[in-house]
């Protein structure tokens, strides 16, 4: 059921504003929308603008907190203690979470400081490594670099060249000193007389000499490189020490997680405050509240503030309130399916209750394996029991639980058990399955399409009811009722043998007359006739919708066939391994068991995904098409939304 919304305007004293916002957040009853009341440029809008900019800077700070703590958690993710896969989220008070924010921020500060030092060490190391590689060719030079100075008559150039080209320099009469090293090119210091500078350089170059200058360090290049290397080694040690300190911060995970949740609570509140409108002394809040929680809201505000004014009214026609659906505990998880398509229009109809039985029916038929249903139900039940999931995850887990139960039933009626045929397990006299899709394909397809046709009929009936409620009896009778008459008439004509079957013929004719005669009632003259005849074309839509249900047959069969194929694989593996002497029996058993477990778990997972989605699609396209008005936006009240801890 869709719960109607009330629009609220709350006026209060600014002094109470923070307390009221806190109380609203703790109770999660109001969706706040932006309040705007002041004309542009007026004094009022200036005051409110001041208030808003204050809120915005607070929000910026809170956003920064959240992103800092998130970054810290992701930096520390490798060092965090692992939570149990099925451990439920720890419970915590809201105050405790908010109180944890400063500690978390100080951990962030420490971490950021450490990271800064690590980065500094790294860039230092990179710089030194670059020097080391630039010094490498000159490591064998045996005079300090600063001693290489030009004399009155000659300068010196330092460079590298191949050792076997040195005789060329001798021939040219150039004075040089070579420092042999193991490298392909050795460092050479050549004297260049000022008088014949150009010629000498040209000779040098022609001998393959390449000028190069080592990085500007004093002393012997070899010693310098050695010193840089040892400095880099100690930097390396420092980095690993700093990394150890970072890892040690992993112990503070608890504080960080609590701090993140606290910061997220504060962030959400700060966001909501930005939507308020304020004068010097008062503030105004506008938003939506569920009509069944209106009294609760009054109570909350009455407790928190002495002076206030609360105005509530029904939504105006031009307003689009958010949608909130309230269903019984069994149906509530299936809202997830509807919301996957689109939440219902707030003035429309919540289809969850009329959809759930069909969803479970077709889900069961598509999975169609009692063993898999059992596994799914047990797994989902354990997950719900241990992890206590909420929100979308919890809804999906509950859908899978009920879907598993349905699968068990329909596995018995029209399917298999762990990929095995029932009559292979219990002998040929076992009465189940009633329909064996492996043996009697056409019956199975007909039955499933028939069930689908049933669902479409239900969808049309729902549509008629909805149209009648709105007083639109013409659409209900001419567009939908006429088709129902035709279908009913056809059924009577085909099934009844006595002369009473002509009642069926009558119904068909009546239906056709209504359809063709009034289908085009919105138009005049010739258009009306064409419009009415055009309605007949809808029959193709019915046909394709019904045929779409044949997927139920294919998916149901595919589950069983995949299961039996996996059984076969395990069997073959066992037979092959049996041949191993002595240990063959044990090994073959273990391998086959492992194979069965892994393959069947895979089979459950992939088929559950397929059934979940295809079944949802049948609802969306074949069923909702008939009556559903989508386009709502989910009610999202200001509340407490945490990641790691559950708030009590």
């Amino acid at each position, binding site marked *: 059921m869709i719960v109607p919304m009330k629009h609220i305007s709350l006026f209060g004293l600014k002094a109470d504003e923070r307390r009221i916002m806190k109380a609203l957040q703790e109770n999660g009853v109001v969706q706040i929308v932006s309040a705007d009341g002041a004309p542009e440029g007026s004094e009022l809008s200036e005051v409110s603008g001041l208030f808003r900019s204050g809120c915005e800077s607070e929000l910026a700070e809170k956003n920064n907190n959240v992103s800092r703590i998130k970054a810290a958690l992701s930096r520390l993710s490798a060092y965090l203690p692992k939570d149990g896969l099925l451990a439920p989220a720890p419970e915590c008070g809201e105050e405790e979470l908010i109180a944890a924010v400063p500690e978390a921020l100080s951990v962030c500060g420490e971490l950021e400081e450490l990271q800064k030092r690590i980065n500094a060490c790294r860039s230092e190391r990179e710089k030194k490594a670059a020097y080391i590689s630039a010094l490498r060719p000159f490591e064998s030079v045996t005079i300090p670099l600063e001693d290489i100075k030009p004399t009155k008559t000659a300068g010196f150039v330092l460079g590298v060249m191949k050792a076997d080209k040195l005789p060329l320099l001798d021939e040219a009469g150039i004075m040089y000193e070579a420092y042999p090293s193991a490298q392909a090119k050795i460092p050479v210091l050549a004297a260049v007389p000022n008088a014949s500078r150009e010629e000498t350089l040209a000779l040098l170059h022609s001998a393959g000499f390449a000028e190069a200058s080592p990085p500007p360090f004093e002393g012997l290049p070899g010693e310098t490189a050695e010193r840089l290397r040892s400095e880099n080694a100690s930097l390396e040690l420092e980095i690993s020490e700093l990394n150890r300190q970072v890892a040690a911060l992993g112990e503070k995970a608890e504080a960080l997680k609590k701090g993140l949740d606290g910061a997220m609570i504060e962030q959400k509140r700060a966001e909501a405050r930005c939507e308020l409108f304020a004068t010097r002394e008062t503030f105004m809040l506008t938003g939506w509240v569920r009509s069944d929680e209106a009294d609760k809201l009054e109570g909350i505000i009455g407790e928190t503030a002495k002076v206030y004014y609360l105005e509530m009214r029904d939504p105006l026609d031009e307003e689009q309130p958010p949608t909130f659906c309230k269903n019984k505990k069994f149906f509530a998880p299936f809202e997830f399916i509807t919301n996957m398509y689109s939440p219902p229009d707030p003035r429309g109809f919540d289809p969850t209750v009329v959809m759930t039985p069909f969803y479970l029916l077709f889900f069961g038929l598509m999975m169609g394996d009692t063993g898999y249903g059992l596994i799914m139900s047990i797994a989902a039940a354990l997950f719900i029991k241990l992890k206590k999931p909420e929100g979308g995850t919890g809804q999906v887990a509950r859908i899978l639980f009920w879907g598993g139960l349905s699968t068990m039933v329909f596995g018995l009626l029209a399917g298999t058990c762990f990929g095995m045929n029932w009559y292979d397990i219990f002998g040929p006299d076992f009465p189940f399955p009633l329909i064996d899709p492996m043996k009697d*394909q056409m019956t199975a397809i007909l039955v499933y399409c028939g069930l689908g046709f049933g669902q479409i009929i239900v969808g049309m009936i729902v549509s008629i009811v909805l149209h009648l409620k709105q007083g639109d009896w013409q659409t209900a009778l001419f567009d939908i009722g006429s088709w129902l008459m035709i279908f009913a008439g056809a059924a009577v004509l085909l099934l009844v043998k006595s002369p009473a079957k002509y009642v069926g013929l009558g119904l068909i004719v009546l239906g056709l007359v209504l359809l063709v005669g009034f289908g085009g009632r919105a138009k005049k003259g010739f258009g009306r006739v064409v419009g009415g005849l055009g309605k007949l074309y809808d029959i193709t839509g019915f046909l394709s919708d019904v045929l779409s249900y*044949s997927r139920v047959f*294919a998916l149901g*069969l*595919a589950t069983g*066939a995949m299961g039996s194929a996996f059984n*076969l694989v395990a069997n073959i593996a066992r037979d092959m391994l049996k041949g191993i002497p002595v240990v063959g029996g044990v090994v073959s058993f273990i391998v086959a068991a492992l194979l069965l477990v892994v393959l069947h778990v895979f089979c459950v997972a*992939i088929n559950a*995904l397929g059934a979940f*989605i295809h079944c949802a699609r049948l609802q969306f396209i074949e069923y909702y098409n008939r009556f559903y008005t989508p386009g709502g936006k989910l009610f999202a009240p200001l509340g407490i939304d945490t990641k790691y801890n559950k708030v009590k």
Partner: protein
Amino acid sequence: MKKFRSIAVIALIALLTLCVYGAALAEGAPAVPTIGAAPEAPVEKAPTGYIWAMIGACVAMILPGIGSALGVGMAGRAAAGVAAEDPEKGGSCLVFELLPATQGLYGFVIAMFIAVFSGILNGSVMQLATELGRGFFYASLPIGIVGLVSAYFQSRVCCAGIGIVAKQGNGGMGITYAIMVELYAILALIVSILMVVGVPVNA
């Protein structure tokens, strides 16, 4: 797109020619004449149904397998891109990645059906009459070809759906869009199943 087209076309043409050529060769070959048989007795041809049945199982597995591998690969790359930015969205992307995987599974189902019904598993396939073997081959074609093509196109919708996840946080209608493409693989699967079980092996 161009790459896919070339892969698909090459795979299809190579496989089908090979199949038909091989089977045609085998059908032309006479059975080994028994020594001492009267020379005027007509040379009896050995049944070649086993070749066709094997080819059928291959087609049913190979073509949709290629399609699904391509499709899951493409969607997986897109999903990894989103997960790299925002690991929390990885879960929603996984659904999109798995959708094109089903065609390969359907092909696997048909291949197993052919293996069971034609007697590949218990060895009786060697006595399969040629016409029956051909039946299995034809039965593999719907899921083989439609599976290959639909897995690829479904994957493209899935990649777009992953884009929805990246921008909106959850897939929403994207999953429904992707499922639409799957209908044709499912219909092909149904037709293939009906054809396989319709081959009158025990008649």
